[in-house]
C-alpha cells in the first residue's frame, strides 16, 4: 500500500514533468488523458485496501521537507521583495521565524508522518476524478488561448494535484504546513499565469492571505507542542476531548477559514478569476479550498460540541448567507460562481464542525457534489468565454438559441446546486434535520436559520442566472446543436452524468460509500439506510419516487425548451399596447452592495470571536 500512496503523490509530479518536457501538443494531451485512469485506478486501490494505515518514511524525507520549507518561504520573501509587497515580505519573515522556532522545540514523535484513512482516500478519489478531468480540459483551453505556454500550464495543474494528494495524506502538522504553503505557491503561480498587472496584483493578494493561514498553522503547532506535546493529527484526536486546551485547534480552524476563503478573507478567491478558467475550476472544485473542510473534518471529533465548534458554526453560517447576498449583486458569471463557492464552503465547514455522524455525512456529500458541479460550471464558463465570447450574465441573453447544449448544462449545474433532489440539496436537508436535534443551543438554531436563508438566497441567485439564459424572443427557427470541441463535450459530459447519476443513487452512494468515511472520522456509522433509491435518515426519509419524480420534472424543463411545440397564435408580449423596443435587464440588488462594508465588519467580528473565545485565548 505504501507504494500506491507514494505513487499517488509522485505520479502527478512525473506526469507534470513529462507534460512539461513533451514537445508535441497531441502527446501532451495523451499524457494528461492517461492521468485520469491511472490516478483513478490507484485511488480506488487505496480505497479498497485495508484502511486506515500509517506509512513510515525514511529519515531523509523529514530533512527534505524542512529544506523545502525554507526554500519555499525564501521564495515567498523573494517575491515579496520583487513585487514590493510589504505584507508578503513581512509575513514571510514571520513565517521563517515561527518555523525555526517550531523546528527547535519539536519533540520526537514515534507516530509515522503519513496517515491514510477513508477521508484521505475519499479526497484522493475527488482529486483523481474531478481534478484530472479539469487538466484534460485545460489542454484544449490553452490550445485556444496560448499554445506556447500550454505545457507549463497543464504541468502546474497536474503538479498541483500531486501536492493536494500529499497534503491530505500527511499526519504531521508541520508537514501539513509545508504542503499548505505549497498549495499556496501553486495557486500563486496559477493566478499570476497571465502576467498582466491585475493578475500579479491578485496573485500577491492570494499569497499574503494564504500566508496568514500558514502563520495560524505554525502558531497552532507551537501551542500544540506546548499543551499536548504532540503535533500529529492522530495524536491530537486521541487526547481526551473534554479537558484539553482549545488554543491550537482554534488556530488550525482559523487557517481552515482562511484557506476556505471565508469572509473577510474571501478576496483572494475572487481574484483568482483573472487567471485562465481552468485555474478557477481547479481551485474551486478539487483542490485548494477543499483543504478547508478537510482540515475541519480532521479535527471535528475533538472540537465537536465545544464553544469553538459553535462559533465556527455561526461564523461559517453567516458567511453562507453573506456570500450569497453579495453574489446577488454581481453580474460577472465567474464572480457569481466564486461567491457561491465561498458560500457553499461555509456550509461545508458548518456541517463539518457540527461533528455528529449525520452532519459529517452531509459535509462529505457537499464536498463531493460541490466539486463536481463547480468544476462543471467553471468549465462551462471557460467554454462560453472561448467559444461564444460571453463573460457577463447580461451577455448570455440569447445564448439558448445559439448554444443549446451549453445552456442545458449550465441550467442543470445551477439547478443541482439548490433544488430537490440533487446531492447538495440532500446534504442541506439532512443537516437541517440533524440541527433540529440540538435546538436548545443558539448556535444550532442559528445554523437552521442560516441554512434556510442561505439556501433560498442561492436559489434566488441561480434562478436569476437561469432566467437570463432561458429568455428568448420566440420559437426556435431551426434547432441545431452547437459544435463544441470533443474535449469540451467529453469533460463537461462526464460531470453532468456523474451529477445526475450520483443524485439518483444518492441513497446507496451515501450508505455504501460516504458512510465508510464517516465511520473513520467519527468512529460510528451515520444512522442512515438505503432501500432501493429511498434514503432513510434517523428521523425521516426521502422516497425513491420523490427523487425520480423531481429529476424527471427537472429534466423535462430544458428538453422541452427545444422540443415542445403548440399550435396556437403568437402574439406580442403585453406592454400596455405600446410599441417600444425592450431591453430587459436583471435586478442588480444595489440595495445589498450598500451594506457590503457592514457585512464585512460582522465577518471580521465573528472571525475574531472564533479565535478569541473559541480558541480559548481569554
Amino acid at each position, binding site marked *: 500500500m505504501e507504494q500506491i500512496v507514494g505513487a499517488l503523490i509522485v505520479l502527478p509530479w512525473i506526469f507534470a514533468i513529462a507534460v512539461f518536457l513533451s514537445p508535441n501538443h497531441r502527446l501532451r494531451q495523451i499524457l494528461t488523458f492517461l492521468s485520469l485512469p491511472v490516478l483513478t485506478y490507484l485511488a480506488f486501490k487505496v480505497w479498497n485496501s485495508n484502511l486506515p494505515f500509517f506509512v513510515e518514511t525514511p529519515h531523509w524525507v523529514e530533512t527534505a521537507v524542512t529544506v523545502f520549507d525554507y526554500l519555499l518561504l525564501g521564495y515567498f520573501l523573494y517575491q515579496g521583495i520583487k513585487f514590493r509587497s510589504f505584507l508578503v515580505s513581512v509575513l514571510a519573515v514571520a513565517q521563517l521565524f515561527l518555523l525555526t522556532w517550531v523546528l527547535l522545540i519539536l519533540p520526537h514523535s514515534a507516530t509515522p508522518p503519513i496517515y491514510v484513512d477513508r477521508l484521505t482516500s475519499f479526497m484522493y478519489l475527488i482529486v483523481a476524478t474531478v481534478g484530472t478531468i479539469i487538466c484534460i480540459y485545460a489542454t484544449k483551453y490553452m490550445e485556444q488561448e496560448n499554445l506556447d505556454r500550454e505545457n507549463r500550464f497543464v504541468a502546474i495543474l497536474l503538479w498541483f494535484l500531486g501536492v493536494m494528494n500529499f497534503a491530505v495524506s500527511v499526519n504531521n502538522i508541520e508537514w501539513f504546513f509545508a504542503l499548505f504553503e505549497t498549495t499556496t505557491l501553486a495557486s500563486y503561480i496559477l493566478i499570476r499565469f497571465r502576467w498582466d498587472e491585475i493578475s500579479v496584483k491578485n496573485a500577491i493578494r492570494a499569497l499574503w492571505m494564504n500566508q496568514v493561514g500558514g502563520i495560524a498553522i505554525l502558531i497552532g503547532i507551537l501551542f500544540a507542542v506546548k499543551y499536548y506535546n504532540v503535533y500529529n493529527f492522530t495524536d491530537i484526536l486521541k487526547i481526551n476531548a473534554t479537558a484539553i486546551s482549545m488554543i491550537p485547534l482554534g488556530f488550525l480552524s482559523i487557517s481552515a477559514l482562511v484557506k476556505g476563503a471565508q469572509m473577510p478573507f474571501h478576496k483572494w478567491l475572487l481574484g483568482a478569476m483573472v487567471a485562465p478558467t481552468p485555474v478557477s475550476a481547479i481551485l474551486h472544485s478539487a483542490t485548494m479550498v477543499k483543504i478547508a473542510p478537510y482540515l475541519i473534518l480532521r479535527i471535528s471529533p475533538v472540537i465537536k460540541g465545544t464553544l469553538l465548534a459553535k462559533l465556527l458554526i455561526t461564523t461559517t453560517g453567516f458567511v453562507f448567507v453573506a456570500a450569497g447576498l453579495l453574489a446577488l449583486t454581481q453580474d460577472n458569471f465567474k464572480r457569481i460562481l466564486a461567491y457561491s463557492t465561498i458560500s457553499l464552503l461555509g456550509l461545508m465547514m458548518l456541517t463539518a464542525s457540527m461533528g455528529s455522524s449525520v452532519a459529517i455525512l452531509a459535509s462529505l456529500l457537499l464536498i463531493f457534489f460541490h466539486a463536481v458541479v463547480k468544476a462543471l460550471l467553471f468549465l462551462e464558463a471557460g467554454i462560453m468565454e472561448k467559444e461564444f465570447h460571453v463573460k457577463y450574465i447580461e451577455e448570455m441573453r440569447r445564448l439558448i438559441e445559439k448554444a443549446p447544449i451549453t445552456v442545458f448544462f449550465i441550467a442543470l449545474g445551477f439547478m443541482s446546486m439548490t433544488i430537490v433532489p440533487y446531492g447538495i440539496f440532500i446534504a442541506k436537508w439532512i443537516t437541517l434535520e440533524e440541527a433540529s436535534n440540538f435546538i436548545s443551543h443558539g448556535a444550532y438554531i442559528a445554523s437552521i436559520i442560516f441554512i434556510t436563508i442561505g439556501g433560498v438566497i442561492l436559489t434566488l441567485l441561480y434562478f436569476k442566472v437561469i432566467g437570463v439564459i432561458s429568455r428568448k424572443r420566440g420559437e426556435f427557427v431551426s434547432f441545431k446543436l452547437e459544435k463544441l470541441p470533443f474535449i469540451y463535450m467529453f469533460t463537461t459530459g462526464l460531470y453532468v452524468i456523474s451529477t445526475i447519476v450520483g443524485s439518483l443513487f444518492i441513497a446507496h452512494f451515501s450508505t455504501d460509500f460516504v458512510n465508510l468515511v464517516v465511520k473513520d472520522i467519527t468512529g460510528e456509522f451515520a444512522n442512515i439506510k438505503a432501500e432501493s433509491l429511498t434514503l432513510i435518515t434517523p428521523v425521516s426519509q*426521502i422516497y425513491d419516487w420523490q427523487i425520480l419524480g423531481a429529476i424527471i420534472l427537472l429534466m423535462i424543463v430544458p428538453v422541452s425548451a427545444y422540443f415542445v411545440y403548440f399550435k396556437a397564435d403568437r402574439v406580442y408580449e403585453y406592454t400596455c399596447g405600446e410599441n417600444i423596443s425592450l431591453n430587459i435587464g436583471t435586478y442588480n440588488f444595489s440595495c445589498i452592495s450598500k451594506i457590503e462594508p457592514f457585512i464585512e465588519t460582522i465577518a471580521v467580528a465573528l472571525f475574531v470571536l472564533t479565535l478569541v473565545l473559541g480558541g480559548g485565548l481569554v
Partner: protein
Amino acid sequence: MSKELSVVLTLLSPFIGGLVYGFERIVRARMQNRQGPPILQPFYDFFKLMDKRSIMIHSFHAFMGIMYLIGTWFSLYVLLSGGDILIAIFFHVLSLAFLVIGGFSVRSPYSVVGAMRELIHMLAYEPVFVLAAVGLYLVTGTFQVSELLKTDTVPILTLPLVFIAFLLSLPAVLKKSPFDIAEAHQEIIGGPEIEYSGKFYEAVYTAKWIEYVYAFFFVFLFAGGNYFLGAVLVVLSFFIVNLIDNATARVNFRQMVSFHWYILIPLVVVNLMLLALWRA
C-alpha cells in the same frame, strides 16, 4: 393518512381548492359589503378559459405554465402522502421554479419583474416554513406528516408564537395583500402569469387553487392528531388571512422581507428556544 386517501385527496385538490377560492371570493365580497359571485365561479372561469382560442408568446413559456400545474400537484402529493415536511416544502420551491423560469423566459417587463418578485416571496416565507417544521418536529418528534397526524400532542398549545408567525406568513404564500407583490394586479398585472392566456392560463389558475390546499393543509398540521381542532384552525386562519387581505395595502418587497426576517423569524425562534430550554 392512508395511501388511498392521499391519492384521492390529491386528485380532488383542484376541486377543493376551487371551492375554497370561490368561497373566498364571496367572503371577500361580503367583507366589502358586496354580494359577490356564486361559489362555483372559479369553475365557470375554468370552463370559459378552456373555450378560448389559445394565444401565446412561445411554446416553452406556455409549457412552463403546464409544468407549474404538474409541479404543484406533485408537491401537494408529496405533502399529503405522509412524507417528510421539509421535502414537501422544498418540492414547493421546485414547483415555483417552473413558474419563475416561465416568467423569465419571455421578454415581457411585467413578467420578468413578477418572476423576480416571486423569488423574493420565497426568500421571505421559506425560512418561516422551515422553522415551523422544525418546531413541529420539536414537539412531536417526527418530520413525517403521517406520524404527525397520529400524535396525541397538540402542537399549537406549545407553539403558539410559531403558529402566529406561520399565519402571518400565509399571505406571502398565497400572494394576498399586504404581501401580494409578486402578483400586484394594479401594478404589474399578475406578474409571472401575465403572458398566459386561455388554456395555458387555466393551468396556472388551477395551480393556484392547489396551492390553497397546500398552504391550509400546513395549518391543519398544527393540530396534530386532533382533526376537529385542525378544521377549526383552518377555518379560522382562512378568515384571518382574508381579513388581513381586505384590510391592508400592499407593501414593497423590502418591507415584506424585513417583516418576515426581523419579526416573524425572531418570533418563531423565541418560541423554539424557550421550548427547547424548558425541555432540556
